[in-house]
């Protein structure tokens, strides 16, 4: 397997990944992780080791990096202040940059780009609201191309055909 010795620096440079190298592998993150309790595919301490060893492709290309549920149990207990939830986020940020993204994430971002919201604004939902006597939800006023641009939503990977209409 090809190793990339600079991988750890790349992660440490990502916003939130700064403290990665402080890890002394005590394993309290793994022992606290509710995902790890069910599935041993996901092991925070091991992910940090893999990053430190430079196993770039194995990490970025894996499906386990999308398993973190952001519950912050590890961050709360880490003695070294590694803030693993944020490190995980930094890993995902780099993965997206390198063209790896979980299809569900891509789908969510695509909707976000169209509506400025996490969900489609459609008649079905609005009818439910009307039935409750609540006002209809409209597409956010001023959700312009410029906002889409500064939010970096104009080049989600992978590109989809219907993006062109926005």
């Amino acid at each position, binding site marked *: 397997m090809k190793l990339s010795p600079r991988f750890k620096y790349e992660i440490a440079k*990502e*916003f*939130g990944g700064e403290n990665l190298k402080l890890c002394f592998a005590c394993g309290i993150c793994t022992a606290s992780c*509710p*995902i790890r309790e*069910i*599935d041993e595919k996901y092991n925070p301490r091991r992910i940090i080791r893999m990053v430190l060893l430079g196993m770039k492709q194995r990490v970025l290309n894996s*499906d386990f990096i*999308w*398993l*973190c*549920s*952001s*519950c*912050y*149990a590890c*961050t*709360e207990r880490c003695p070294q202040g590694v*803030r693993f*939830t944020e490190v995980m*986020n*930094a890993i*995902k*940020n780099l993965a*997206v*940059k390198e063209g790896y*993204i*979980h299809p*569900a*994430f891509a789908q*969510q*971002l695509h909707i*976000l780009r169209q509506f*400025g*919201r*996490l*969900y*489609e*604004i459609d008649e079905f*939902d609005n009818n*439910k*609201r009307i039935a*409750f*006597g*609540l006002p209809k*939800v409209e597409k*956010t*006023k*001023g*959700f*312009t191309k*410029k*906002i889409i*641009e*500064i*939010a*970096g*939503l104009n080049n*989600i990977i992978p590109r989809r055909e219907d993006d062109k209409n926005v």
Partner: protein
Amino acid sequence: MMRLIPFWGCMMPLKYPQMELAIRKTLPNLGIELVDVDGFTCCPDPIYFKARNKIKWLTVAARNLAVAEETGIDIITMCSGCISTLKEAQYLLAEDPDLMAQINRRLKRINREYKGKVKVKHAVVMMRDDLGIEAIEKSVKRPLEDIKVAIHYGCHLLKPSQIMRVDDADYPSILDDFVTAIGAIPLDHDEKLLCCGKGCMDDELPLEMTESIFASIEASGADCMGLICPTCFSSFDMGQIMIARQKGKTYNIPVIYIFQLLGLAQGLSAEDIGLHTHRVKADKVLEKIV
């Protein structure tokens, strides 16, 4: 009258309007005027968008804060995801002036600026700190006596504690106090603080986590589950149907948003707060009240 901007987020207005309804009907009884503001986008969510690019995530969050800041009124949020994003954004920007400058350079392109003045609180935190538990007690017309509520705190209201600073992350009491104030009985159970698992991109893992929470609640003998986060709600309400379908185990534990419980205690009917739209019907609980 306290005036506050509600930051509804995405899930609540679009997926679970009954939660919005409950807030809109209960908060005015506590002397709070909700001032709706145009122009908010997704907070953006602390899982998908943040995973895309944290700096850009921060920019959009700062934009939302800036929109509220221009009105001079403080924000309350009702969703744990929204409070997580907005609080973390505020924390990061307050800690690092260079980052603030960088984000504001981006915001300048859409003629906005975030100064760091607006205050953001979760509605329950606002109620505890600014109104006081007594005010909630006073608004109660029909105490939910004998109703045992298994509270689910979820993760993002409390953690990371360094940023959120709401309560003790291992022994929280804020929602227990809330539930006690409306006359119900908060119940402890083994998996009270477990994550609902929704953020995990897997078909089976989240369901297993949800199930272990339900098994623990069932053992505790609670009448219903009381929660604070719409994301957790989707795991638990729909989740129970999924568990029944995939594993053949029916728990039938009603999942109720904590402001819906407040609504019931304030004398509203189940329809008033949209309880009838939940997948798991709350009939057991309602029988006990009337």
